[in-house]
Each structure stands twice: as structure tokens, then as C-alpha cells.
């Protein structure tokens, strides 16, 4: 196995869950997210030689993921939101412990609420949920740290509001109160 292959496999091993979750936030549909994740891995492999270490590896990976997500969304052509019935269906099927079930419901609701956000907001919140620093998010998006801070605060408020509402009311809230 060449050094490049070893490095790539190490990168994938260390970052695959994080990259997948960013894809999940950017693209609400599960199948599309898998497709996007695969595209990201392909791009990381094909562009690995361009990483010179000027930026942090994580910043480089986030940038590739976000650029691929933006292109993917352009090809998809439309903003897709998850439907409220997807959540109740999933909640019913979760039959394990109460805590796990609660976690699952929370996660599905989170997915639904993220899908109600605007494209750029979804990109930003995906990084916030990964606990990426404001500075790094600013670097990835090419914005100033202050600007990113303001945006994140707005998105957090919006997400909190969406999460408080009962399922199904988010669409209305999204259309009227928040735009």
C-alpha cells in the first residue's frame, strides 16, 4: 500500500463519521446524503495531493465537503425538507430502551428542523453541531469570525424555536415568523 493510500485510509478512519454527519445536515434525504458522502470521499482521494498543510486538515476536509454539498444541491435543483410523517414513523419503530428511543426521536426531530433551514444555515449548523470553532468555520466559509458569530447566533435561535414547536408546525413557523 502506498503512502498516499495509507494517509487516505487514516483520514477516512478518523473523520468518516464527522464528514457523513455534515452531509446529512446539508442534504436532508438519507439516500442523497449517502450519495453526497461517497462523492466527498472520491473528491478527498482525488485531491489529496493538493493538500499542502497550509490549513488544518480538518479545515481542508470541511471545505471539500461543503463545496461538494453546494454543487450537489445545485444539481438537485430544489430545497428538500423532510416530511413530518417521517419522524412519527421512525419514532414508532424505535423499540429499544426509553432513553434510546428518546434520543432517536430527538435526532429525527433535529434532522427535520435542520431540513427546514436555508442552505447556508444548514452548512453552518452542521459545523456547529460538530463543535468546530468559530474561527475554523469562518476559515471554511471565507467569512470573518464576527460575521460567523452573528450568523450562528441567529441560526441557534431559529433552531431552538423550531425544536420547541410541535412537529408539523415548523413549516408554518419557517414560512412566516422567521423569514
Amino acid at each position: 500500500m502506498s503512502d498516499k493510500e495509507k494517509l487516505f485510509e487514516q483520514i477516512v478512519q478518523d473523520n468518516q463519521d464527522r464528514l457523513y454527519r455534515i452531509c446529512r445536515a446539508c442534504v436532508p434525504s438519507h439516500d442523497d446524503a449517502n450519495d453526497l458522502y461517497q462523492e466527498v470521499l472520491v473528491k478527498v482521494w482525488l485531491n489529496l495531493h493538493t493538500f499542502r498543510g497550509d490549513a488544518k486538515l480538518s479545515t481542508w476536509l470541511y471545505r471539500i465537503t461543503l463545496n461538494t454539498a453546494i454543487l450537489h444541491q445545485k444539481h438537485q435543483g430544489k430545497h428538500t425538507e423532510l416530511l413530518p410523517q417521517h419522524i412519527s414513523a421512525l419514532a414508532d419503530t424505535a423499540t429499544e430502551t426509553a432513553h434510546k428511543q428518546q434520543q432517536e426521536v430527538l435526532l429525527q426531530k433535529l434532522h427535520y428542523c435542520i431540513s427546514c433551514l436555508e442552505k447556508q444555515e444548514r452548512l453552518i449548523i452542521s459545523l456547529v453541531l460538530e463543535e468546530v470553532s468559530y474561527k475554523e468555520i469562518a476559515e471554511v466559509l471565507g467569512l470573518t469570525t464576527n460575521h460567523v458569530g452573528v450568523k450562528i447566533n441567529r441560526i441557534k435561535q431559529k433552531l431552538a424555536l423550531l425544536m420547541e414547536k410541535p412537529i408539523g408546525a415548523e413549516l408554518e413557523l419557517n414560512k412566516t415568523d422567521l423569514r
Partner: protein
Amino acid sequence: MNLEDFQKSWQTQQAPEQPNKPTALETIAKVKALQQKVVHTNAIMTVVLCATVAAFVFILRPFLNPNTIWYDVGVGIVFVTVLLVTIMQWFKTASWKNRQLDLSSREYVTRAINKYTFLNTTNLKTTPVLMAFILIGINLIYVDIFWNGSFKLRLVMHILLNAVMITIGVVSFYYSKRHNENTYKPVIRELEELQQELEEV
């Protein structure tokens, strides 16, 4: 419920099992690129088809003012041949736009091999037939155009036309064959290897 709870819950998600070996990823990249190329070629063929029909029907027909039915028969043959090839290509590749590329699925890989083999064979075997039909069509158009000319003029024009068309045909066939060997064959070979691996698993 605060952001920390969201983060904790969010970070429980794990990446799905997908082929992430560099060789598999390179195959994915090649398959995707070829898919895009085929869809792109289909679109170009459709545009060429429409432009050819428009040129023959709306520009050449009023300008040449055909004397016989052979002009329309010739145009018909050219049009139907190109239309059939275009439909065949679109039909075989239409599902690519909506189907997720999944090289971990044996069914997908088998289907992809079938499609690429079909396209490769179509390009190699039907191109001469397609050219022959187009040549017949254009010869019929020439029959009409030089209907009132002398036998000698008609003979010379047909010989020239066939010589030019055959030369163009042979050259384009040679390049198309070379192009196919560089594009389709390596992808088919890689997919076949992948299929074998999947069958072993």
C-alpha cells in the same frame, strides 16, 4: 433542551458502510465521469438531430425545390436512423439521472456492466450501419438534386459523395474505436473485477 444536548445527540450518528478503498473510489469517479459523458453525448445527439431535421426541412427543401419523392425518402431515412439511435441511447441511460451510484451492490454493478457493454457495442457495431443508412439517405437526396443533370454529372457527383462520406466514415470510426478503447473498456474491466470480488464475498 440546549445546544449541548443537540450536539450530543447529533454526534451519535455513524457513517454507513461504503466502499472507501482508493481503488473502489477511483472506479466510482470513472463510472460517474462516464455516466455524465454519455448523458452529455445524448443531449448533443438530440440537438444535432433537431438541427439536421430543421436544416433539411426548412432550409434545404424550399431552396432546392425537390423534383421527386426521393428527396423526402432520403431525408426520412437519415432522420429515422438518427432518431432510432438517439432513442436507443436515451432509453438505455435514462435511469442514470435518478439512480444512486452504488458499487457495493452486485445488482448495480451488473446493470452498469450491461449498460456500458451495450453502449460500447452500439458505438462499434451500429456506427457502420448508421453511416450506411445515412449514406443511402444522402444518395437519394442527390438523386433528386441532380435529377435533371446528365448521366455523367450524376455519376461523378455520386462517386464523389460516396468517396467523401466513406473517408469521413472510416476516419470517424477509427477514432471512435480508439476513443471507446480508452473510455469504456477500462471501466468495464474494472467493474468486472469488482463484480468478481462482490461474488466472492
